[in-house]
């Protein structure tokens, strides 16, 4: 197995002849000449994400403070809006696993990369960064970054710099998902840390990464200003703007008003009911499918009605997802499975997730239930929460839809922070009050977050995030095969097979997928919204 860097392709392009070279140069110069303008972004976060390397504030933190100021060894391809995002070389140009010992990985570190402070990136600096997260006795250990990063690389057992540009990582057990895990880990500058008295609080105010953007100023809770890193290693991703300003604007109406009054040029997640006003005033709504889902995670603990596959399938057939779209201003992708239909891992499930109330009633009748004798379920929901879209009206829609086929839902409503605790505690924890499902939206971008963590037997809550206590030997075998398939094509095939089982067994109440809407001023040009939680801001210009 071997991945090859963009550079290989670039060289071949140059090999095509002088015309291509001139065209490429012209594009580059044209891009540089257009460099101007400030993009002001209204984020949904209430604070500027952690700036030292490993970010907080979830997907938004990685999007705006992670892949902007920093890089990881392996990154997500953010260049295309039309196809699912895949892994591409980042600070590692290639990597391979030892066929004789599949716990042993070798990474070639990209040569000639420098941090914003001018210090070079070497394999030793990568080791230093891994110690920052994993070795509590190291001087650079940072509990805040470790809290964010350690759980992302559970496979890593040890690591060594073989030479300046060769890194070896040994995993605890053979684990083919390691490249996906490493896509989380961002590299901070060792030299900068040392120059600032080995104090992460000082680094937070003057951070240094290798990313396409340099953070120049930062006022907690108010704003962060970034400028292009003109010496970025990937010439195609050198930002065209002069400046990007991040402004935390957690209140949706305040975000929309700021955009409408010209104080920002871009807002994340406009409220669906403000979208007609925004488009009516000439603002563009950008959206795209991405690996996110809005489901009810079903309890499979003893006594849960969802243990009956007929009831699970009936519920999935009871929801008119197209009508739900009206609630969300059309900004959703109706679920056909656990992963979005455009996912490279969707596969070809035989159970079709659709609206068919008659089939739902027939399945319930088979299970001994009817409109007069409904099956009763308790559902945990939250009135708000990060990524939850519009949880109250959406859950009421689901409740009504299920009632129409003979499933009576009683809600247990808790505040979002407590909801996260209940999700961690699991379905059988007394705090969950005997609920049979939890409405939790998921980041499902890689094999672990997408499929493994929800249903793996060894991750049953509270040990992990298998909230519903599901454990099935066939599923377990598939999940193990994902980890042991070192050929990417073979791994993709197992992922598809696993997802087919998710759908065919109707293991979740699969409702919808978010499309990451963002509203842009008509001045913003050149943005390509990738099918990913993270985005590339380098191609953007301002009119």
């Amino acid at each position, binding site marked *: 197995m071997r991945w090859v860097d963009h550079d290989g392709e670039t060289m071949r392009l140059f090999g095509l002849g002088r015309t291509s070279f001139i065209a490429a140069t012209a594009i580059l110069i044209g891009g540089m000449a257009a460099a101007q303008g400030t993009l002001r972004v209204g984020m949904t976060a*209430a*604070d500027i994400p*952690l700036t030292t390397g490993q970010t*907080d504030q*979830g997907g938004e933190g990685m999007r705006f403070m992670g892949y902007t100021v920093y890089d990881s060894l392996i990154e997500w391809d953010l260049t295309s809006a039309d196809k699912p995002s895949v892994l591409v070389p980042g600070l590692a140009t290639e990597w391979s696993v030892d066929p004789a010992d599949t716990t042993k990985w070798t990474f070639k570190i990209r040569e000639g990369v420098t941090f914003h402070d001018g210090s070079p990136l070497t394999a030793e600096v990568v080791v230093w960064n891994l110690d920052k997260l994993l070795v509590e006795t190291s001087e650079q250990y940072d*509990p*805040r970054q470790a*809290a*964010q990063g*350690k*759980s*992302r690389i559970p496979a890593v057992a040890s690591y060594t710099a073989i030479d300046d540009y060769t890194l070896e990582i040994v995993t605890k057990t053979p684990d083919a998902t390691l490249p996906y895990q490493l896509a989380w880990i961002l590299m901070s500058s060792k030299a900068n840390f040392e120059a600032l008295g080995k104090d992460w*609080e000082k680094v*937070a105010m003057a951070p240094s990464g290798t990313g396409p953007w340099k953070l120049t100023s930062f*006022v*907690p*809770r*108010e*704003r962060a200003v970034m400028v292009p890193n003109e010496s970025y290693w990937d010439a195609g991703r050198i930002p065209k703007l002069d400046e990007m300003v991040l*402004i*935390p*604007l*957690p*209140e949706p*109406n*305040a975000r929309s*008003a*700021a955009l*409408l*009054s*010209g*104080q920002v040029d871009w807002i994340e997640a406009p409220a669906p009911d403000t979208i007609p006003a925004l488009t009516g005033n000439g603002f563009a709504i950008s959206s795209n499918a991405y690996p996110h889902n809005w489901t009810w995670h079903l309890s499979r603990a003893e006594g849960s009605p969802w243990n009956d596959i007929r009831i699970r399938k009936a519920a999935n057939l009871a929801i008119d997802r197209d009508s739900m779209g009206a609630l969300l201003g059309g900004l959703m992708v109706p679920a056909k499975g656990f992963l979005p239909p455009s996912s490279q891992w969707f596969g070809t499930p035989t159970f079709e997730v659709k609206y068919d109330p008659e089939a739902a009633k027939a399945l319930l009748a088979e299970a001994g239930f009817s409109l007069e004798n409904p099956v009763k379920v308790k559902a945990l929901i939250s009135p708000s929460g990060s990524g939850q879209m519009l949880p109250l009206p959406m859950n009421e829609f689901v409740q009504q839809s299920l009632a129409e086929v003979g499933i009576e839902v009683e809600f247990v409503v*808790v*505040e*979002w*922070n*407590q909801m*996260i*605790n209940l*999700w*961690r505690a699991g379905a059988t924890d007394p*705090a969950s009050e005997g609920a049979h499902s939890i409405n939790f939206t998921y980041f499902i971008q890689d094999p672990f*977050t997408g499929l493994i*963590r929800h249903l793996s037997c060894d991750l049953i809550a*509270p*040990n*992990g*995030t298998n909230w519903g206590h599901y454990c099935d030997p066939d599923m377990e075998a598939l999940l193990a095969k994902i980890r042991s398939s070192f050929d990417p094509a073979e791994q993709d095939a197992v992922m598809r097979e696993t997802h087919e089982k998710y759908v065919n067994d109707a293991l979740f109440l699969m409702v919808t997928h978010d499309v990451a809407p963002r509203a842009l001023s008509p001045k913003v040009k050149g943005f390509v919204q990738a099918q990913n939680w993270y985005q590339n801001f380098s191609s953007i210009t301002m009119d």
Partner: protein
Amino acid sequence: MLSYLIRRILYVLPVAFGVSVICFMLVQIAPGDPLTAIMPVDATAEEQAAMRAAYGLDKPLPVQYAIWIGNIVQGDMGKSIATGRPVAGEVLVAVNNSLLLAFSASVIAFPIGLFLGFLAGYFRDTLCDKAVTAIAIAGVSVPNYWLGIVLVIIFSVTLGWLPSMGAGPGGSQDWHWDWLHMRHLILPAVTLAVVPIGIVARTVRALVGDIFSMDFVQALYAKGMTRFDVLRHVMRNAAATALSVMGLQLGYLLGGSILIETVFNWPGSGFLLSNAIFQRDLPLLQGTILVLALFFVFANLIVDVLQAAIDPRIKRT
């Protein structure tokens, strides 16, 4: 006067202690976990336990309180769990921004409220009185976050005259007393001023009306004083109570502006508090509530002392 002052200051100590206990305990009652803000939602139970121990959240509550209050007495309010930054610095910046907003709102609200109240009290049961009463009731009744949104729609979105959010083009740390920055203050300050205008006007109207019906006013008229001189006496009599109401309102303006600060994205204590609540950032929450509560206590102390200075009857009690 001095003994009154000392007695009044000593009263503050048990109140401050009570406030600290309530601040600490109140935030423990709500379900939720401060670690949610700083760990990925799928962090393992073991990692969570290690983090809980690192922040001392695994200790019994009385021990946590003792450590907290011990540090507070030494001027250390701890570090925010969500941001890792010192609470004292965070609260100081936020309270400073809220004070700016609260004083601006006071400058608008108190003179207008006083003026309208005197007007209505003096011309009691006239059309003028009814108009002022209507304004006062509207001011108290209109939800101010709704008013804020309406003002934003009119003056920011439609007319484009004033900014809708933030504390200046460069953030609050770059504040200057120039038009570029002060225009950010106008909408939130006006919105915040509406309730106190109503309350002060209503209180002063009732006071002035009552005082005008007292015997001494008739006596003053009988002595041959002009209406203006009589009004001066009435105002002096009303001043102590009006001051006390304004003191309470100042406290309200400082601590009660969560909704306004959220609508206008104003980086003050209300904004800080609401984020701390959602993140269960206990040290930040406790620190902010404590500072705001103590501010309220001291505002009352100052008002009491001023009242005593103005009204000789108070000193004797």
